[in-house]
């Protein structure tokens, strides 16, 4: 039955019925808040909900074979090790990795970036070197490089936006890349602009113009949950992801790296699991990925992430992408048409394909006020700087509200959101 399901679902556009069917897998969506307001969860760019099968896989772990991994020979430990490493296989397959050994489990994408900064970065970035980021980066892809730049005395530069489309200024980025450039690090999809960065062009520019040892890091937090992705094909050296944004539990994320790059890196944290042998005077280290996984790993969380990869793969990431593209464009157009004085950041769907999210402000209203009243209507959107303060400074705003969709959101929910946004504005303006 399961394999037939895969076949059926691996082609054709997602239908409204299928999406409704998905919702059955997410018990959390079926609830009311503040007594009688049906929940409309539009905060998926912050975190996604989890399907029952992921929760079941985790429950099964704790109820049947919870045990510490790798070192034990007894039955539970062997099973836990099997499942933990199978989860790595699943994650590797999901992002096109050539080997599971190229996948390092971390707590979240932030840790994955910091891992690269504290290992490859600490050893390879120094005075005279330059790191090129974009102004739209998440704080997690800015602060680690800033902190390291203060220690190691290199420069951090930011590519800006094309004012016409509010997406990356690719020419500007190209101009920043020089033989001094030792790292280019950027997000695949902006969590505020919704824009999809042209990875191939950026990689080509870096490989041509940057220092021969230049590394390229891709923050794939907002792409991998929403579209088919193959890291090796993208030509980058590192890519990072958070599990909780892709139907997996909290507490798990991963770093993918080119094998020869991971091999050459010194270890990050010291402790159990990442060693080969420990002596009083010195230690030798395991090979990747173990080398970078100190201490008891987030075993159950990794298994949950593996199950989430299976869940998404069975639906088909191409179909998820197509569906989100359509419902995202629908939300964009409805907002533009029906909400006077709204400004939505990033390219319009007519200019470029964009993620199924809209970060916006309504003239004269503070984003937090908007989201607070929307919340009273049961609409869960986020407001603030979405961990992109430099982008907000660049756009000349303090905050924005953001509605972000996932595979279980319906057009009816979008309609409800737009309608309640109108009422919210009325609430303030009618004041």
């Amino acid at each position, binding site marked *: 039955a399961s394999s037939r399901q895969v076949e059926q679902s691996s082609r054709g556009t997602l239908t409204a019925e299928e999406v409704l069917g998905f919702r059955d897998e997410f018990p959390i969506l079926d609830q009311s808040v*503040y007594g009688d307001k049906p929940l409309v969860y539009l905060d998926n760019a912050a975190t996604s909900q989890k399907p029952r099968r992921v929760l079941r896989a985790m429950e099964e772990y704790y109820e049947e074979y919870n045990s510490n991994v790798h070192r034990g020979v007894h039955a539970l430990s062997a099973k836990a090790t099997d499942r933990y490493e199978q989860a790595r296989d699943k994650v590797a397959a999901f992002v096109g990795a050539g080997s599971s050994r190229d996948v390092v489990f971390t707590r979240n994408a932030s840790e994955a970036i910091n891992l690269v900064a504290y290992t490859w970065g600490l050893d390879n970035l120094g005075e005279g070197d330059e790191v090129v980021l974009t102004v739209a980066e998440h704080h997690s892809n800015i602060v680690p490089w800033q902190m390291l730049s*203060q220690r190691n005395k290199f420069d951090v530069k930011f590519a800006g936006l094309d004012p016409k489309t509010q997406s990356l200024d690719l020419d500007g980025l190209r101009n920043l890349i020089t033989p001094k450039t030792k790292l280019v690090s950027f997000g695949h999809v902006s969590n505020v602009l919704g824009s999809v960065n042209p990875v191939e062009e950026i990689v080509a520019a870096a490989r041509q113009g940057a220092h021969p040892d230049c590394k390229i890091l891709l923050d794939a937090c907002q792409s991998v949950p929403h579209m088919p992705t193959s890291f090796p094909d993208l030509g980058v050296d590192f890519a990072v992801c958070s599990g909780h944004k892709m139907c997996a539990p909290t507490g798990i994320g991963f770093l993918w790296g080119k094998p020869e790059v991971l091999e050459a890196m010194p270890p990050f944290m010291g402790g159990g699991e990442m060693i080969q042998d420990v002596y009083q005077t010195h230690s030798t280290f395991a090979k990747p990925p173990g080398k970078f996984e100190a201490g008891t790993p987030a075993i159950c969380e990794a298994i949950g992430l593996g199950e989430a990869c299976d869940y998404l793969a069975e639906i088909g990431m191409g179909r998820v992408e197509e569906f989100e593209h359509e419902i995202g464009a629908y939300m964009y157009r409805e907002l533009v048409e029906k909400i006077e004085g709204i400004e939505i950041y990033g390219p319009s769907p007519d200019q470029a394909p964009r993620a199924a999210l809209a970060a916006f402000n309504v003239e004269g*209203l*503070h984003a*937090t*006020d908007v989201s*607070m*009243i929307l919340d*009273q209507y049961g609409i869960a959107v986020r*407001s*603030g*700087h979405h961990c992109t303060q430099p982008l907000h400074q660049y756009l000349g705003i*303090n*905050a924005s509200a953001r509605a972000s969709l996932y595979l279980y959101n319906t057009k009816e929910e979008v309609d409800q959101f737009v309608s309640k946004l109108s009422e919210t504005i009325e*609430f*303030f303006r009618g*004041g």
Partner: protein
Amino acid sequence: GALLRLRTQAAQASTSMPAPLKGLIAAFSAVPDPMLRYKQLLHFAEKLEPLSAEHHTPENKVEGCVSQVWVRGTLQGDGTVAFEAESDSQLTKGLAALLVRGLSGATPDAITALDPSFFEDLGLQQSLTPSRNNGFLNMLLKMQKIAQGLGEGGEGVDPNLPMSQKIEQLLRKEFEPSSLEIHDDSASHAGHRPESAGGGTHFRVEIVSESFEGMNTIKRHKAVYAVLAEQMEPAGTIHALSLSTKTPSD
């Protein structure tokens, strides 16, 4: 944690809640519909006296809010506190207005002793968990801190003074120095600490006092730190102190 202790500490004092605040809570909780309560906040926001721009200073800013909020308190002749506030968010401004109305005219002690849990009685369906976007709690804690500072006026120093003068007053009182120089070096740290741009975070202090007689350098430094403890982060704004502590005979 922090909140729990606040509650315990304040539990005994809850009977002494300022009358205006009591009235406001009663009025709010009588409104049947949460949306109407929020509407009420908007009215409060509209009626709040603006806080003049000169007081939009880092010292007055409520840290850790998504929106921008400033709060100012001054001690009145009758020993009570008068508050002013401002925010770029209407709802936050409404909450600020509610606190300004509810707490102005109360004594520092009454304000400091207040249990934040009254917020729940307002029926705004918001959380009291300490968090960086909890505008209400952060405002209240700021107002309590201001009140505490004003209440300690006699013992300590005027909280509205610039930090360098606070340091001077405290050190003169404790050590009766024969020489005292205080340099505010904050500006030179503004590159990596933007909050230092406004001053008040980094100081170089050169003090000569007979009271250091018989103490080694570590003990002298400890003595100075003890006197300035309340002015150091996180209670105060001093982030770093560079000390030269001598006796007249050194």
